[in-house]
């Protein structure tokens, strides 16, 4: 099943400055893919469009075989609940503990407290932050905060994970551990798209890469359709 289908997606800002042009690609269920490109190439904008955080100026976006343009606000919210997103700026809520930050998608889904505790504990342990989840973000290191943001993105077991520079503050070993964790998720059917400017990280992995250059796709290299 096609999880993401982009057909001629474009995005302009202001008086016609094109950030993305004619982006077309398809990501299937369980696919694991890197989105590479220099800073300003349009990686974040493309992830935002797929995450329904931003509207495309042109083209057609289909998520889980639903045409996004035809979906009403309730349907869009339902689509968002199937997506886990790691923001580049993390967007952790400072007044909440790591535990409560991770639990937010489960609260949104209306899950019972006991189940929430179980899921959050499981994911936090998996990512190695189990002992730190009662702390607030300000008390955590940058790498730990990134782990919290990743845990929040995957705790609801979404069908699609979008991660924008998820390892930018991690050392190589931690970054690889995290990539392994996301690979494991992908093996259970979750589609994973990771935007990174860390080409070395992408190189060490055997996964396909989509490359963006000045808002245009120049890949994929062994990439998706």
């Amino acid at each position, binding site marked *: 099943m096609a999880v993401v289908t982009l057909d001629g997606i474009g995005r302009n800002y202001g008086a016609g400055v094109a950030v993305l042009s004619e982006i077309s690609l398809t990501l299937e269920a369980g696919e694991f893919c890197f989105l590479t490109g220099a800073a300003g190439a349009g990686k974040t904008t493309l992830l935002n469009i797929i995450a329904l955080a931003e509207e495309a100026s042109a083209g057609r976006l289909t998520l889980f075989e639903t045409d996004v343009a035809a979906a009403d606000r*309730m349907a869009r919210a339902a689509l*968002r609940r199937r997506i886990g997103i790691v923001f580049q700026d993390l967007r952790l*809520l400072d007044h909440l503990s790591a535990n409560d930050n991770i639990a937010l998608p489960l*609260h949104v889904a209306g899950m019972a407290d006991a189940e929430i505790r179980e899921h959050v504990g499981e994911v936090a342990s998996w990512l190695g932050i189990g002992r730190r989840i009662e702390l607030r973000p300000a008390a955590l290191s940058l790498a730990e905060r990134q782990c919290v943001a990743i845990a929040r993105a995957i705790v609801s077991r979404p069908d699609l994970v979008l991660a924008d520079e998820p390892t930018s503050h991690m050392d190589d070993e931690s970054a690889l551990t995290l990539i392994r964790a996301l690979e494991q998720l992908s093996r259970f059917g979750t589609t994973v798209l990771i935007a990174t400017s860390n080409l070395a990280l992408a190189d060490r992995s055997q996964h396909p890469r989509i490359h963006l250059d000045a808002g245009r796709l120049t890949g994929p290299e062994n990439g998706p359709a």
Partner: protein
Amino acid sequence: MHPRAFIRTPLDLAMPRDATALLLVSMLALIGYLATLGGLAFVLLGDDLRAWNRSLDDSVTLQIPAETSAARIEMSLALLRQTPGIAELRLLDQAETARLLEPWLGPAAAPDTLPIPRLLDIRTEPGAAIDITDLRQKLAAITPGAQLEDHRPALALHRRAATRLAILIALGIAGVAVFAVVLTVIATNLRLALHRGAVELLHLIGAGDADLAWPVQLAALRQGLVGGAIGAAAGLLTLVVIGHLMPLDASPSAADWRLWGVALAVIAVAGFGAMSAARLAVLRQLARMP
């Protein structure tokens, strides 16, 4: 919406209490106070108007000079009895008249020391079209110096004045209600601006508009009910204090359900009005998100 969202919602967790809550409660308390005073004034004005109607609506008074003979008084009474539209006649005895004059003349006023005129209380049939000018001339012919006082024109003036006052009070209440709505919208927008990051995050992780709006509405409902209750209590207390400072014959009592009705109406309108205004504000803000 999930049933648990009625008690606890993601936004409750993500949006902690802030200064806007205190701001809204205090402003709604002030508005509730003004609205309660307006409502109570409306009720009391209605009471006064009804009392005037009862006492004066069908009332005409004939004042007969003190020196008038009993025969002339009897002739005047006979004329009045024959006049169509007159329902009841009552000649006040001199002791009763002296009591009426006591506030002006003091307790020393006595019929045997002062030439106190005789008063005749005339009740007309409701809506009776009596030619007062003609009747006045006929009575003056029988009893020179007799004065027929028709209270109905004065009452009509009072009625018009009271109606204008009631309209002004109603407009005042409507004005403060509109102000309360505007204030709630501003406080809600301020709250959403303070927690913009949290709202955007919850929107992006899949919270629906209703899920996001509900806790904001619930908070506004709570704040409106609390503010309205404080304002209504202060309004009732003011009425009690005024009642003690300026005792009236017909002061409203705690058993008067209308006073409690005004207070409850103010609380309910403050609560549900704030809730609706907050919903409007939050949905407008959310509509700007993709």
